[in-house]
């Protein structure tokens, strides 16, 4: 358990601006120029990971996490310092990379396994296991372009984890895909860990870091600012987010490419965002705070009826709350092509800490199975953070009024 698997020593990365590319070419051959501007994205990063450890790497977007990961996997060179790793490193951030859409799943798997450095005999041994784990059925021998994004993710994960690596880097990629498969992925990750694989987990998902890791490091503005237990580091991270939330207002953004849309397109969602109690767009919501979900819709043809529904899901895709304008008896009748509507749903964010997604359904009835104009999963992603309330655990915010007093024996006797 004590062997050092990964040693990151004083790693720094700077992207150089040469002003002119000729100056860059000169620098390869030892010609130095004073006009080179250095832009440091990582500096003085040092930490050690031991065999079998699971370390979470947290930090805001743009803090330098993915640059650090690229340096650890070796695709990016460090400008200063060095990384020493023992054994094979596999990264799930490679998910689906290099898949050729015209080739079948099997052909892609065979090919990409070669790219990962497996020999032909190893590939022949691994392919049936990959096929079995991915559970995409007969699609495995169909061209990749017929796959849904979830199926591609299944094949990619199965491939990335086909053989137990010494270090496994798990990143945000794992937040896409269906709940069933994500559970399967985490099961495999846990099994690897029991067999001695070291884990590096990069995530905004605090519960994943908390439940899987026994240590966490935090990176902010290219520096290592914390290294400790997941609880300590996440508390610091929360504080940092809260600070950011108070100082800046940002339009909520959806991770690109993650949204899945289906339907006839007779009515479409133009825009969806979340506002706080004062009508200010927000990305982070405090537990129990007032929030307003705003959905803008435009009809693309004349419609007999239009029902708008939304559903809030947790990170595993499970429904937390959903309703629609059929249930609220606000069905829009005889819609003309080009009409736009805005739905505002106000509610208190009585949810536990975590990330949530919103699915939107536009249909003619309460069930989207009849006339499905548009069904949009992951239309909006937001985070619920606990910045104001007393700490608690769980999925729901059920603020109790707690009374507690000591009971004296005389009182009991007196009652009798």
């Amino acid at each position: 358990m004590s062997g050092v698997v990964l040693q990151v020593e004083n790693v720094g990365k700077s992207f150089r601006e040469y002003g002119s590319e000729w100056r860059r070419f000169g620098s390869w051959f030892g010609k130095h120029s004073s006009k080179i501007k250095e832009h440091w994205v990582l500096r003085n990063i040092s930490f050690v990971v031991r065999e079998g450890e699971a370390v979470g790497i947290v930090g805001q977007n743009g803090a330098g996490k993915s640059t650090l990961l690229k340096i650890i996997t070796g695709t990016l060179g460090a400008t200063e310092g060095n990384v020493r790793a023992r054994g094979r490193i596999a990264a799930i951030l490679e998910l689906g990379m290099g898949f050729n859409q015209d080739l079948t799943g099997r052909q892609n798997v065979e090919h990409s396994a070669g790219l990962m450095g497996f020999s032909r005999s190893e590939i022949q041994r691994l392919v049936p296991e990959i096929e079995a784990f991915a559970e995409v059925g007969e699609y495995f021998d169909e061209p990749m372009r017929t796959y849904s994004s979830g199926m591609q993710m299944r094949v990619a994960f199965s491939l990335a984890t086909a053989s137990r690596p010494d270090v496994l880097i798990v990143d945000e990629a794992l937040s896409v895909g269906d709940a069933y498969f994500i559970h399967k992925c985490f099961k495999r990750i846990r099994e690897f860990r029991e067999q001695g694989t070291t884990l590096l987990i990069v995530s905004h998902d605090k519960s994943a870091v908390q439940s899987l890791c026994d240590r966490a490091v935090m990176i902010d503005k290219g520096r290592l600012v914390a290294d400790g237990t997941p609880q300590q580091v996440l508390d610091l991270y929360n504080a940092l987010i809260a600070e950011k939330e108070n100082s800046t207002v940002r339009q909520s953004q959806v991770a690109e490419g993650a949204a899945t849309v289906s339907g006839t397109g007779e009515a479409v969602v133009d825009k969806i965002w979340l506002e706080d109690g004062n009508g200010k767009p927000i990305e982070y919501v405090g537990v129990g705070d007032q929030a307003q979900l705003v959905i803008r819709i435009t009809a693309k043809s004349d419609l007999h009826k239009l029902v708008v529904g939304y559903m809030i899901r947790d990170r595993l895709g499970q429904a937390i709350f959903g309703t629609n304008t059929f249930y609220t008896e606000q069905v829009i009748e005889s819609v003309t092509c080009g009409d736009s509507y805005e739905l505002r749903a106000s509610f208190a964010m009585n949810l536990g800490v975590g990330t949530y997604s919103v699915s939107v359904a536009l249909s003619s009835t309460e069930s989207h199975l009849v006339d499905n104009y548009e069904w949009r999963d992951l239309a909006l992603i937001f985070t619920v953070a606990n910045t104001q309330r007393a700490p608690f655990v769980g999925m729901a915010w059920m603020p109790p009024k707690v009374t507690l007093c000591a009971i004296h024996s005389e009182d009991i006797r007196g009652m009798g």
Partner: protein
Amino acid sequence: MKDMFQAIWNYRHFIFSSIRNDLRSRFARSKLGALWMILQPLAQVAIYSLVLSRIMAAKLPGIDSPYAYSIYLLAGMQAWSLFNEIVTRSLTVFVENGSMLKKIVFPRVCLPIITVGSALVNNVFLFGVMIVVFALLGHFPAAALLWMPLLMFTTAAFSLGLGLLLGVLNVFIRDVAQFMMVVMQLWFWLTPVVYMASIVPVRLHALMQLNPMYWIVSGYQETLVYGRNPDFAGLASVTVVAIVLLALSLLLFRKAAPDMVDVL
């Protein structure tokens, strides 16, 4: 250097499967698939033959065939298409595979090797078709077949040296590829593929012979059209140029490799 060859050897299966996939994906969508790789140069030959055969045929002494000019064109095209494919694909090979280079650790030198490999496979197909066309036209250059491996090898080495050198630069200055597209067209017309060297004024011959592609193309024409031996001195100097270019491009590649992923 030894490390590089070791890495290539370890990734040989990946290189082979990349070449195979390259062919496969060409077949996947279009009905005629990889046939287009062959049909395109053949169509070009047919067009030039149609347009220019009257003017050019008279300038081709030494072969008794009404199709002499078509045979001459095919031989030259065989050389040019290999050169053209390797250079144009090497130019963009790093840029096109940018996201892969950024995310996956593998020997980067595999990429140009795959490019050359798949261009060679295409060229061998084209060669097979050319031999069939020759046979239909009543032309059987049997002895020339022995020269083909050497000629193809020299062409590939020269093309790779040039393409890799420019391909590395193109990662940093994207204009290189655009500029080369124009240069390649000009280069085609400066090389005696469509016309014969004999129609060029004698005073320009020394200039023409500075073009490495002149020696390669005339090597193909000598062997395939006339059944003669190629000019060894000329080919040897092209080989020297190719080796120098390859060494230069490898040096540049090694110096540039750490910077490459930063700008992709």
